[in-house]
């Protein structure tokens, strides 16, 4: 299809959809309205279970099943990326040359790294109390590790980051979330039921029953997953090279 025809179809479809959506927008309840029945219920239940951060309560207690699905999406995407970016028969690894890093950059990175890593862990640990939690902290911690690439070089990063272990960590923390869920079924109540542990004292680290445990599992999972993702892309960008032939290698077929 030529570009012109595509643009025609696109503008016809886009215009139609835009008109429908804009009309719909004017029939939505006004921005900032007061009607949030589900939200109000969620806040009540969260306080009843002594979870100060109601978003964490929705994520890890009331709608923990969604989070299970989401964690699995992340896990699958990481597994998929590992499979898709594997080293194929026609590729080899080229060892990257050791790189010279300017001293200020090195100092900056090496100072920032522990701070960022601790920030990540802190954000994970306080997920049920303050904004943040497993997702945010996990990504921060994983990205922090990669400051080493800036500060030292790729080889130092590889040394501190054995990807295989992170893959296993990713899988084990995902299973930990599932096992915590299954504990409910084994105890005779429902899957992911947060009724086994005491809810603790409001606004302390151990409040919220199973919420901190699930949150920690997610934090581990996200951190490991982000490390593996970045590692696979770095691998492609820095190390893996095609041997010999260039161009359309896959098309030759038989």
């Amino acid at each position, binding site marked *: 299809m030529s570009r012109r025809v595509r643009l025609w179809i696109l503008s016809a479809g886009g215009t139609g959809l835009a008109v429908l959506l804009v009309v719909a927008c004017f029939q939505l309840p006004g921005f900032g309205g007061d009607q949030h029945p589900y939200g109000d219920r969620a806040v009540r239940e969260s306080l009843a279970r002594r979870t100060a951060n109601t978003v964490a309560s929705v994520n890890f207690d009331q709608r923990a099943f969604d989070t299970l699905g989401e964690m699995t999406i992340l896990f699958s995407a990481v597994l998929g990326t590992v499979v898709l970016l594997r080293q194929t028969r026609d590729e080899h690894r080229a060892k990257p040359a050791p790189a010279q890093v300017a001293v200020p950059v090195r100092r900056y990175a090496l100072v920032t790294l522990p701070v960022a890593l601790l920030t990540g862990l802190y954000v994970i640990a306080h997920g049920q109390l303050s904004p943040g939690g497993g997702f945010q902290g996990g990504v921060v911690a994983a990205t922090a590790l990669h400051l080493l690439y800036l500060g030292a070089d790729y080889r130092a990063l590889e040394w501190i980051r054995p990807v295989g272990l992170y893959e296993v960590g990713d899988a084990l923390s995902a299973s930990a979330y599932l096992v915590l869920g299954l504990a409910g079924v084994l105890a005779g109540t429902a899957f992911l039921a947060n009724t086994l542990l005491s809810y603790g004292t409001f606004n302390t680290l151990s409040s919220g029953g199973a919420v901190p445990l699930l949150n920690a599992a997610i934090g581990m999972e996200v951190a490991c997953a982000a490390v593996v993702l970045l590692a696979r*892309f770095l691998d492609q960008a820095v190390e893996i090279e095609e041997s010999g032939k260039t161009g359309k290698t896959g098309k030759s077929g038989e």
Partner: protein
Amino acid sequence: MDDALIAVALLLVAATATAAVATRDPVHQALVLSLLGVALALLFTVLQAPDVALSQLAVGSALTPLLLLLSVRKVWRRRQRQGRTE
């Protein structure tokens, strides 16, 4: 005051999103996308969603642009090699 702040953040999001689409070079687009991530984080903060703002900052303005840049680098490195052998 709140309203004005929200409106500014919204317009910023709309503007950076449009710029991200209009920027055809992937390297520049990755940078504009990280600006979009910051704009979104700002919007979520004024809309009282600090959790989402934090994860948007971590994912949208750091992780995703980083992955995009690494992909560009890989594609570019391939082209370089190809250019040399041909």
